[in-house]
């Protein structure tokens, strides 16, 4: 399998920017937010698996390059993978030991649980719709792929 790359400077710049923004937003921001909250409220604990979120965030950031630089259908495949990672990221936040769509923080003896309810279902539906559309884009791209 040979990959053909699109190496225009503008494309590379957009891919780099996207990777940085994604990395910051998905991998670094949750850790920073939790750390700041713990500084403000010592003893605060959350159910968030920050390591998993950081790994998924970095993976999503890394996939910014293939989704921009590779030619179709591989760029579509990378985009689809990115969407799937985004959905997994969301599920890692809202699907903890308390069930789907429930966020929780604990402060010593105090526990605050927020049930997102239909909002979580809405985001899940959006994520699944994104994957569905990404799959369709991938299928169409494979079908259009020139022979040879």
């Amino acid at each position, binding site marked *: 399998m040979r990959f053909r790359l699109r190496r225009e400077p503008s494309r590379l710049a957009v891919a780099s920017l996207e990777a940085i923004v994604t990395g910051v937003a998905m991998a670094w921001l949750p850790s920073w937010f939790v750390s700041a909250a713990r500084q403000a409220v010592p003893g605060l604990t959350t159910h968030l698996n920050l390591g998993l979120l950081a790994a998924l965030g970095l993976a999503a950031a890394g996939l910014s390059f293939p989704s921009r630089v590779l030619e179709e259908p591989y760029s579509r495949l990378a985009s689809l993978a990115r969407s799937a990672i985004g959905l997994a990221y969301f599920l890692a936040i809202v699907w903890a030991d308390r069930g789907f769509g429930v966020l929780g923080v604990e402060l*010593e*003896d*105090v*526990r*605050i*649980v*927020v*049930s*997102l*309810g*239909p*909002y979580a279902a*809405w*985001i899940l539906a*959006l994520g699944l*719709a*994104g994957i569905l*559309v990404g799959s*369709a*884009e991938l299928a*169409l791209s494979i*079908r*259009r792929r020139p022979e040879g």
Partner: protein
Amino acid sequence: MTGPTSRFRRLRVSSIDADLTIRVARITITALWILTAAFSVTLLISALKIRVQVPSTAAWTFQNNSIVVSVPYEIDNGGLFAISPTQVHVEILRRDGRILLEEEFSLLGAPAGERVGGNVTLAWDLSTLLSKPELESLLMSDANLTLRLRATTVYARVFRVELSSEKRVPWRAPIRDLTVEVAREEVEVRGSGDQLLIVVPIRFSHSGWMTAREVPLSYSFSAPWGEIAAGNLTIEELSRSGVVRVEIPLGREDAERLLLNETVLLAQVSLGPVSLSQEIHWEPILSDLEVSEPVVTVYGPNAVDVTTHVSLHLNARLPGGLRVAAALVGEGGEVARVERTLEGAPGPVDIKFTFRVPLARLREPLRVEVYLLSPVELELASVEVRAG
């Protein structure tokens, strides 16, 4: 048109339709993601602008067998979404898991951008919630209790927020080591009209932290011959220590007996959760009463003086003083009368009564009658006059 050309066209047209559909779907989903992200950020910022203030010191009172706690609160909703009324459930558990107190109440909802405040007043009627030993233990002994709190509300009409807390709280007894005693040595006797009042001081003290209000006090005093008095009163404010003076009006028969006889009274007092039964050794108010035989002495050619001494011991303080009268009584009735008013201080009392009467009076039988006029009217003694 048939053959490979038309098949190619159909394929191309359907490919263009699918491409358009996917593009529209992608744009729609992206737009929805942007809206969702904007809503999420707005929601987060709004939630961070909510402030709930509950002062750490709530006002606790113990009133008529009920613990009453009043907690002011304020919800400042600086965000863009409304907070529904908050349902709060509170449980207080003993170490063994037994729920002592349980209460549910609701806090006001806070519309977006508004500040609401209120005051939650909870009253637990302990006499119905707890058995007597549990009540005594809770009020008078320190303990480790568990406070379980659950507050539930809905934010922005969608998000159900539940705060729960379970913490061990050291319970400091509000009226720790409450003691009640009858101050026997300070019992007073007062006259009120023709009625005798006994004023019994009941002392109480505790080392707790709560000022109890409207605490019921019930009492009964009985003598060997029966109940003397029983009643209830309310102590407006039970501070850490104090004295309640119970005024017991005595019937005439009881008054006569208690004035002159030694006995043992049984005091039964219930103050809030505490009951006591205490014996009071009752000394007669007047004891060692002696009326000397009247002495007749000649006063001039036609008159005589009849003199008698009355001695007694006053065992209690009589704030209204002691009024004693002696009357010289003949066949036709009272011949002469002398009254004395004395200070009501405890101690020996010696009174000399002298009647000056015509000599001729000695021909009829005379007697000296001694009366107590105050605090209660009572005939104390009667002595014949023997003319020498």
